[in-house]
């Protein structure tokens, strides 16, 4: 079972998840680029009941590139985004993979919104790729 303990950069928020993730994906949508300031975010999806969190978070909600509502939770002190609650994924907590304490086991199997991927990004193993969000 992977170690799914994690938290924000300053340590003000900590979380833990148990079991196996349902899916590990990379999202290249423009919102995820803006939120991260980087090229994409990594998304580790776990059932809500497998996820616990300590510490205060702040949320920001908008319609994602898919048109469905996304609520992003981040640490109000350091800004690290920790997880997403997405209308398109009911019952799931989407953990932002870069905030895990151990990221060595992550191996995304899916890439979303490849249409807006930065062209230099090289992902070195086979993934299922979608131009936008699969319906």
């Amino acid at each position: 079972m992977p170690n799914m303990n994690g938290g924000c950069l300053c340590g003000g928020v900590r979380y833990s998840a148990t079991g196996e993730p349902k899916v590990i994906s990379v999202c290249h949508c423009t919102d995820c680029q803006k939120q991260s300031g980087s090229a994409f975010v990594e998304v580790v999806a776990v059932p809500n009941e497998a996820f616990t969190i300590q510490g205060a978070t702040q949320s920001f909600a908008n319609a994602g590139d898919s048109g469905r509502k996304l609520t992003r939770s981040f640490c109000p002190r350091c800004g690290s985004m920790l997880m997403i609650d997405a209308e398109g994924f009911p019952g799931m907590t989407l953990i932002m993979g870069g905030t895990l304490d151990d990221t060595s086991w992550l191996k995304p199997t899916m890439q979303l919104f490849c249409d807006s991927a930065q062209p230099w990004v090289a992902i070195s193993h086979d993934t299922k790729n979608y131009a936008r969000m699969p319906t």
Partner: protein
Amino acid sequence: MKLPQTGGCQCGALRYEVTQAPHMVYACHCTDCQRMTSSAFSMAIVLPADAFRLVAGEPRVSKRTADSGRVTTRWVCPECGSWICMGPIPGSTVRNVRPGTLDDTSWLHPTVHFWTRSKQRWVGLPEGVQTFETQPADLRGFLLSAGAAR
């Protein structure tokens, strides 16, 4: 790339303008950057300090003492949490901006990758890029030399 480049946070409260081409585009794979970006690495464009201008909003200034002991400041949107850039460093001639927050990210090609030692395994490094297992001993000098070479 066209100039000026525009960008901002996810919710649009912070907006900025870039008026000169960057000295360098780099990616950093250190574990702090992974945590901060929620991703596998951070990216930065290194700009002449006077080429960056905040045009809307008031950032939250987040301070952190780096492993080197130096205190760094980051500008974060108080509404949506997006980290848009480093704070100005007194006396410095460069300014680092997080280029994922640009409105157009299609022209970005990092030519340098720092901290490949902690790179996530599935992330490939394009051919021809300069890599550092950690970072140059004199990182600031390295970034400045890129500016001088232009």
